[in-house]
């Protein structure tokens, strides 16, 4: 330990701080959770105060992939492709219980949890999760971003 590593760790912290308050999300919205996503993003439960208010509708410009709503087997390859198109550093939030474990759709058409396809950082359960849960999940994600924890 010396002066050099003090500066780099402070730099890491600064970068982590900057990253966590400037989240560019890619909202991969499919189903009912999208309504709660809209509610979280709008004025009542404002997600803009966390710096996450600007969704980038291109995966190449985004760093957090919000997978919102049920993913069916027909949609899964598209999700994988979107995830692959994102550049590092990237995080994935599984929003809603359908993305966490498949929800109550235990059938031939639904992927039983998107972590079977892509690595997930934060799971927000709920059907659909209340905006308060979403904000809690977002704050947990911010903690992960601040320390630079990745799951590739």
């Amino acid at each position, binding site marked *: 330990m010396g002066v050099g590593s003090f500066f780099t760790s402070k730099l890491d912290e600064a970068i982590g701080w900057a990253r966590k308050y400037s989240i560019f999300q890619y909202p991969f919205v499919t189903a009912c959770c999208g309504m709660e996503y809209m509610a979280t993003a709008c004025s009542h439960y404002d997600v803009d105060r966390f710096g996450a208010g600007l969704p980038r509708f291109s995966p190449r410009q985004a760093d957090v992939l919000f997978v919102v709503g049920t993913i069916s*087997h*027909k949609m*899964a*390859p*598209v999700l*994988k492709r979107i995830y692959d198109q994102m550049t590092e550093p990237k995080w994935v939030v599984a929003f809603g219980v359908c993305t966490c474990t498949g929800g109550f759709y*235990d059938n*031939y*058409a639904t992927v039983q949890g998107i972590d079977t*396809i892509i690595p997930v950082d934060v799971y927000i359960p709920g059907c659909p999760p209340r905006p308060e849960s979403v904000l809690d999940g977002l704050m947990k994600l911010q903690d992960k971003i601040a320390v630079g924890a990745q799951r590739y």
Partner: protein
Amino acid sequence: MDGGAILETLRARFGAALTDTHAQHGDHTAVVDRGAIVDVLKFCRDDAHLGFDMLSDLTAVDYLKYPGREDGPRFEVVYHLYSVPHNHRVRLKVRVDEDDPVVPTAVPVWPIANWLEREVWDMFGIRFDGHPDPRRLLMYEEFVGHALRKDYPINRRQPLIGPRT
């Protein structure tokens, strides 16, 4: 027009092609022969008194596990018709066997039948003779089997498909 009168009109015109009619809970139903169904649908649409200008729904039911109908024809294709000017409804059914699941297409009569018949093909495996675009509607093309059939278990997993170009 009263439901009974609708069935009377159909019976008067098509006689033998209507194998069964019944009324239950206010809904009037006629079971029609497979060969005559397109003529019946055209007549329903074009006749001034019937005036069924809207095909409300086209679906199918699998009677494999229905108590009392295990040895009859397996599928029934159900047409729900609605008339906007007269505000009456009728239900037409066509019984289809498992070994020969083909029904003449209703696409020339109403264009909405295109997608509805694609869905019946996807979910039940009933083919529509003369359909311009016989693809699956809801499942992906590589899916094996027909999902809403009674012998398809609900949580059968199939291999995941990869990204398409």
